[in-house]
């Protein structure tokens, strides 16, 4: 009897471990502003980033590393210094903001420039809030610098890695300016127009009353928005009324 139970226990433990590792990574976190390298990749502002564009929150590697990709081979592009990583201009201090998709109990948050740890925040195993911000002094540094941020998880051997390129104390960080992000506005639609104003396209700012055609049908915009894949008119009745 006891032997049976032990066998069952072992079987279940094994099953449990397999289930837990088989579930999709619940992912985790990265620095959103100033934009980290993975944040730029997820926005499409740096080309050929590879897999990281789909999951900027997943740069999870064993603790103690000093690389932007945390030793995760499929994210190696993050450590490619030949890529045109934009640098964000900052003064003598900067506030780093994290996007957290899982609030893991946290031991510490570390910030490095080169081999020097410029800041350490000890959470003593606490669970972080929905967002985390750290103000870090950059005193003694100037010009272009790469900050490596590390989120050390309290109850696992893992950490999350995020690199942020900064231009400290003035100077032109980027020879060519990063493109502005404001979407181009469509011409003001004429509400009285009866003819469709064009074929629906992703990436267009539509105002209330704008009319489009999509798959042979006409629609009127009910709610201002910038269009995107997944928000095609027949799929989002909250945004488009079929005419």
């Amino acid at each position, binding site marked *: 009897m006891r032997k*049976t*139970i032990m066998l*069952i*226990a072992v*079987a*279940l*433990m094994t*099953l*449990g471990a*397999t*289930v*837990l590792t*088989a*579930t*999709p*990574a*619940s*992912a985790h*976190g990265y620095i*959103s*502003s*100033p*934009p980290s390298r993975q*944040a730029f990749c*997820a*926005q*499409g502002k740096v080309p050929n980033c590879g897999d990281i564009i*789909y*999951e900027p*929150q997943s740069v999870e590697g064993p603790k103690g590393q000093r690389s932007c990709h945390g030793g995760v081979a499929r994210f190696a592009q993050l450590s490619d210094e030949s890529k045109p990583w934009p640098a*964000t201009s900052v003064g003598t201090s900067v506030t780093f*903001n*994290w*996007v*957290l*998709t*899982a609030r893991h109990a946290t031991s510490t948050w570390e910030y490095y420039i080169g081999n020097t740890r410029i800041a350490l925040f000890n959470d003593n195993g606490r669970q972080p*809030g*929905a*967002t985390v*911000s750290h103000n870090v002094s950059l005193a003694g540094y100037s010009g272009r610098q790469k900050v490596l941020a590390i989120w050390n998880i309290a109850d696992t051997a893992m950490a999350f890695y995020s690199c942020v390129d900064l231009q400290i104390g003035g100077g032109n960080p980027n020879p060519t300016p990063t493109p*502005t*992000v*404001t*979407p181009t506005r469509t011409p003001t639609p004429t509400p009285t127009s009866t003819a469709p104003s064009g074929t629906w396209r*992703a990436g267009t700012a539509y105002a209330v009353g704008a009319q489009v055609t999509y798959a042979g049908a006409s629609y009127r915009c009910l*709610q*201002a*928005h*910038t269009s*995107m*894949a*997944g*928000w095609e008119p027949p*799929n*989002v*009745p*909250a*945004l488009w009324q079929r005419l």
Partner: protein
Amino acid sequence: MSRILANRTPLSRTPLSRMPLSRMSRGCLALGIAAASVLAASACGADAASHHHAGPAPDGAAPAPGVTTPVAGGTAPATDDGTEADAATRPAESDTPAGVFNAADVMFLQMMIPHHRQGAELAALAKARSAREPVRTLAAAIAATQGDEARTMTDWLRAWRQPLEAEPHAHDAHGGLHVTPAEEAEALAGLRGAAFDARFLNVLIAHQHNAVEMARTELKTGRNPQAVELARRIERSRSEQIRQMLAELSS
């Protein structure tokens, strides 16, 4: 355990199900916990229940063993492997005339509905608080579309005669419910202008990342064509929303 476990999880086809549950629960506390975690994980998706632990069945041969329902008109489910054991233990709902679905579909909808509602509530905060017109516009569109989608998903679960909510902690093995804590919404409600925008965007970006992850799980494990198509649209639109919000943060 939950109704969904009792009715839909293909226990009879897993090695686990051949173990006497009553004896297990008498065994020891750790054993009970282990059993609970396995069952919870199984309930969270057909992937965990079938692909990895269904024993000798070849991976991919039956994406949704035992939990498919006949399509309207009585056509035999394509995924049914036709064994007698399966026929004998097919869930009672198999005559639901609402199309084919599996436990992963149900779990996806059960997780997505509260996630959507909360996202819509978060987004609604921006109207009176954000200093940026693009943020207010995007948030209003998110609130409107997610409200719609939540209603659609609720209708599907009702048509399938499935509970609208899973048992508490049934999603723990998937990292919890992926909802943003209520206290965060309260904190946001007290902010205005730039302070609101910075915090709001980071919270909503994380929230939508989680929606993308749940949608990807459904794309891999779901069976119902409508739910899978919704997951595809969620994955695309939320990825684009994240892109726009990241751009707002850095502008």
